[in-house]
């Protein structure tokens, strides 16, 4: 893998892992202006998958889990440590990893849809990963740890659904807004392809085929290099976003 792409991957993964942690420290986020506080870390997991893609999104979550295992207070409420992982919510926590992966995979498809279907597509991606996959791991783990009936535990988990549905909608909308902004920026400046199709560095004569998240390639090369999308599809994604 190209050194620039590797460095970009490390930086994006680190920054989004830090974002997931930072969202846990913001206690008072209110949805739609209502007095409904949300724990924003699941939102961060969905966003990591929807913005960075499956590999880098799940890598960012893996870094957060490493910090949790190291007992750093990186979870909401200043929690962290093995005690949290082995507790009732441990399954939901470990479920973040496949959740980000699935969000990224579905979001990749959603970004290929026509513009008006992108927000619903990204919301579906966040629901598939952040709710279906996370609950599929979290609920059985909860039942095993508390030694409860699985059906009863699933019934209790329904109480979290409204909040998670709101988070999935917000994450889908935020991811769509970010992709739109990135598309506009690349249109204005260099014309990079969205969706990680790869860019061609004309000045260096080198083709970077490795997707740089979904942001494709927000100015991958050195400053001043002229870059065009591989395959000559200049500005296609940027145009679709408008």
């Amino acid at each position, binding site marked *: 893998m190209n050194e620039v792409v590797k460095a970009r991957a490390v930086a994006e993964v680190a*920054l989004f892992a830090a*974002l997931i942690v930072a969202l846990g420290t913001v206690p008072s986020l209110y949805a739609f202006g209502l007095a409904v506080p949300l724990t924003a870390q699941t939102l961060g997991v969905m966003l990591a998958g929807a913005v960075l893609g499956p590999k880098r999104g799940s890598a960012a979550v893996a*870094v957060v889990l490493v910090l949790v295992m190291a007992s750093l207070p990186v979870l909401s409420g200043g929690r962290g440590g093995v005690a949290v992982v082995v507790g*009732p919510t441990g399954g939901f926590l470990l479920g973040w990893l496949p959740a980000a992966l699935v969000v990224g995979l579905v979001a990749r498809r959603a970004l290929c849809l026509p513009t008006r279907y992108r927000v619903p597509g990204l919301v579906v991606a966040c629901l598939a990963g952040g709710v279906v996959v996370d609950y599929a791991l979290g609920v059985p783990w909860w039942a095993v740890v508390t030694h409860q009936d699985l059906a009863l535990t699933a019934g209790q988990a329904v109480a979290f659904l409204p909040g998670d549905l709101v988070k999935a909608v917000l994450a889908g909308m935020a991811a769509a807004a970010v992709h739109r902004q990135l598309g506009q920026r690349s249109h204005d400046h260099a014309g990079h392809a969205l969706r990680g199709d790869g860019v061609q560095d004309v000045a260096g004569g080198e083709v970077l085929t490795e997707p740089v998240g979904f942001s494709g390639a*927000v100015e991958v090369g050195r400053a001043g290099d002229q870059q065009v999308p591989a395959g000559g599809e200049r500005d296609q994604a940027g145009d679709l976003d408008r």
Partner: protein
Amino acid sequence: MLTAEVRHGPLRAVPAPAKIVVVIALGLLCAVSSSRVLLGGVVGLGAVALVAARPVWRRLGGLAGWWAVALVVTAGMQLVTRDAAAATGSVLRMAALCLPALAVMASTTPEELLDVVLGATRPLRRAGLATHTLALTVALTIRFVPELVDQAQTLRDAQRARGLRPAVLPVTVPLLLRCLDRSRTLSEAIVARSFFDRSEHP
């Protein structure tokens, strides 16, 4: 963020990897077994270990309180839906999982635990995992958490200054875009320092 007060006690001298292995082994044992004698034994062992660790309660206070609430809620649910025996079993199991882990946390610094976690990934180097890259990523994450917290606060302050109530999207979208911008400059800094050349050919 990594600084945490750990008092000297009998458990402090035990190597961190050994403590982690014991906690994982006990956790697996408690997860598969339903013997109350075994669960009670592990609870007792965990309680003794926690006292021996001489915990700084300020550090563990929030987590211990969260566990106490989880125990009470679970016991209440089991009493309502099943019986007292089931409630006792659930409480014992949860306490057996939590107390040894709290004892490890109380007697080990985050740096030591981070070394254990990163050290555990070292054998994966043969499978192609770049462990030095993982270490760099973890270090960068820790470095940027305070900065992002500050940025989120700045964005919320800016909303308040405009007379708006803090909302999710107007904070999250700029924060994400700033993250992506920052990752670009950060990656340029990593390349400028030839990190990958040096780490692959030390």
